[in-house]
């Protein structure tokens, strides 16, 4: 058996311990070259500024022997100086959603989830748990965090849960363990699980992957009705756009095909045969940005997964489209 504890206020107190040397810094973009500040605590992050424009980057910290010792998370916002957070090797970051970044980390004994306001430069812990949080994403309306858990003792999949961000902080399971889904069980042991939300925030994708392929479970968050798409040949999740689940092919190398699955029929269409990067298009959630070509001749296309129609993107530098 495993025990779960979570407490919004207690988590905030824990975050206070992370406050180190909050030196006042100018808040212009030019200050980015200055050493970043540590992250402060804000007991009620949901009431803080939601100013858009936040960003984060996560760099590994590797020791002289080549072992990953953790991650150096840098959080920024145009209105204030950067913040920095050291994370352990087992950590996941997502967002920003409405100005909030979700940070999940595990110290080997407990996992926690923090919501970070890049604009306010502070964080609030919203969950502590004895099991291991592998991924966490914030719903578009900010009323819940969806998280994927594995059991600490044997890393067994414990499913996907919904953590309400209100004071009640209720935790409800929205998807069972991946192994309960026959198509995932057929695929074999899972190496990685991705969580994503569609552009409207109405559906959640939990994609279970191993080197052979991926199976995506798509949950309608209003009805909890689940649709299963994929198997061998499906690669990493890119986006859920309307009735299309856009993923990489199962390549483990580049270039690689980008494909769209009809979530009703499971039918697969190739959107681009030889892509080198792909991501949801930030300017319009109906599109994905796909880059093709190599360094000297890289081009970015905006592709409508519903129709497969593609047009050159004149706004997004190819270097900003990440795998």
């Amino acid at each position, binding site marked *: 058996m495993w025990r779960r504890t979570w407490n919004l206020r207690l988590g905030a107190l824990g975050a206070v311990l992370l406050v180190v040397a909050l030196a006042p810094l100018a808040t212009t973009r030019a200050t980015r070259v200055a050493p970043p500040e540590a992250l402060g605590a804000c007991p009620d992050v949901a009431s803080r500024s939601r100013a858009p424009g936040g960003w984060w980057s996560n760099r590994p910290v590797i020791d002289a022997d080549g072992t990953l010792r953790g991650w150096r998370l840098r959080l920024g916002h145009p209105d204030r100086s950067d913040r920095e957070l050291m994370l352990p090797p087992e950590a996941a970051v997502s967002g920003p959603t409405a100005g909030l970044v979700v940070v999940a980390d595990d110290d080997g004994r407990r996992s926690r989830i923090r919501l970070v306001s890049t604009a306010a430069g502070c964080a609030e812990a919203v969950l502590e748990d004895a099991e291991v949080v592998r991924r966490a994403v914030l719903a578009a309306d900010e009323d819940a965090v969806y998280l994927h858990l594995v059991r600490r003792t044997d890393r067994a999949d414990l499913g996907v849960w919904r953590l309400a961000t209100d004071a009640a902080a209720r935790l409800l399971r929205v998807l069972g363990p991946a192994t309960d889904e026959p198509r995932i069980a057929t695929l074999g042991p*899972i190496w990685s699980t991705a969580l994503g939300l569609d552009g409207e925030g109405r559906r959640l994708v939990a994609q279970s992957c191993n080197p052979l392929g991926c199976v995506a479970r798509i949950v309608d968050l209003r009805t909890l009705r689940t649709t299963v798409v994929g198997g061998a040949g499906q690669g990493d999740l890119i986006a859920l756009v309307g009735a299309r689940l856009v993923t990489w092919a199962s*390549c483990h190398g580049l270039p690689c095909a980008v494909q769209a699955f009809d979530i009703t029929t499971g039918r697969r269409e190739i959107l681009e045969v030889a892509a*080198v990067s792909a991501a949801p298009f930030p300017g319009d959630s109906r599109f994905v940005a796909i880059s093709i070509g190599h360094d000297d001749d890289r081009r970015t296309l905006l592709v409508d997964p519903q129709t497969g129609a593609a047009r050159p993107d004149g706004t997004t530098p190819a270097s900003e489209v990440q795998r």
Partner: protein
Amino acid sequence: MNGHRIWRASGILAGALAISLTAHGAILAHGPDPLLGGTLWGQDQSVAYTWRTGQVPPTWMQAAIDAGASDSNASRAARAAVLMRVAGATSLIAYGEPSSCGAAGIACADRSGAPKSFRMWVRAQGYMFDWGALRWCQAPGSNTNGCYDAESVALHEFGHVQVLGHHEDLADESDWADTVMHTVARAKPKAGYAPRAYGRCDTARLQLEYDRRTTDALFSSCLSIPTTLTLSASPSAIGVGESVSFTASLRTAAGTAQRALSNDPISGRLVVLQRRTSGSMAWVTVLTMTPSPSSDGTYGTTWSPTATYEWQAVFAAPAGDGITGSSSSVITVTVSGCSGLGCPQSVDR
């Protein structure tokens, strides 16, 4: 603890692959690795790589990657790219994040820059997957069950760089040693977790795309390339006591299926010359033809037949050579200038 999970999982995964492929009706006969795609390197092109600034591998990983490159060079059995580490090279290998590897990858490569450059990424020791922390066998204190062999993983990635896609393993994994291009690597201590050379179905694809290194080199036994054999005699009509020069030419069949191996001369094989009397079905082997020292795939001999015979050249492919046997068309060498009982019409030499 994770080690046991990893290698046990890989076996299960391979089984799952076979099930999945069967379900789609797409399981293929055992054969050369599929193509990864993109432009080929030039034949025997020297391709230099170096470490990506800011993501330089630790010393033990550098040694493993360099060894993997050496393994590729030594075992390519084809005119595939020759890999070497050179300072300032444009092809970059990175350790740790950021990488372009999929979420379930321990290493990956990008050959979209071929024939100019490639990229490779290797995940760091301690990277966390759902099943636990990645461990490389070459890392200090990490050579225990469940670790992954960095040298063979590097060889695998260099296989991608060359042009090799993932091999479609047989359901029972009986072909495991035929390739290093498995979708899921095995972890220590499972048999075959640390290969040091391309398998025969890897070299098969490399030969198909880049050709063999020499015309007398063996074809990968993962191939079954048809051959053609021609035979000519000069002159084709002689008098008793005169000599005929027989010349045979052994080549692979011409055709797109043979790719770079199409119409390749085949040297260094055994080609025999046979004869029969007209109307007979029984061939008699006369001799083994001599390989030409100056013309690839050509075999010759000089003979003084004492009677008119039909002649053919025959090539029987030896075991372990990935080509099929062939026979030439039948030619007739007419011997004249003698008549009556004194002629040695029925004398076999």
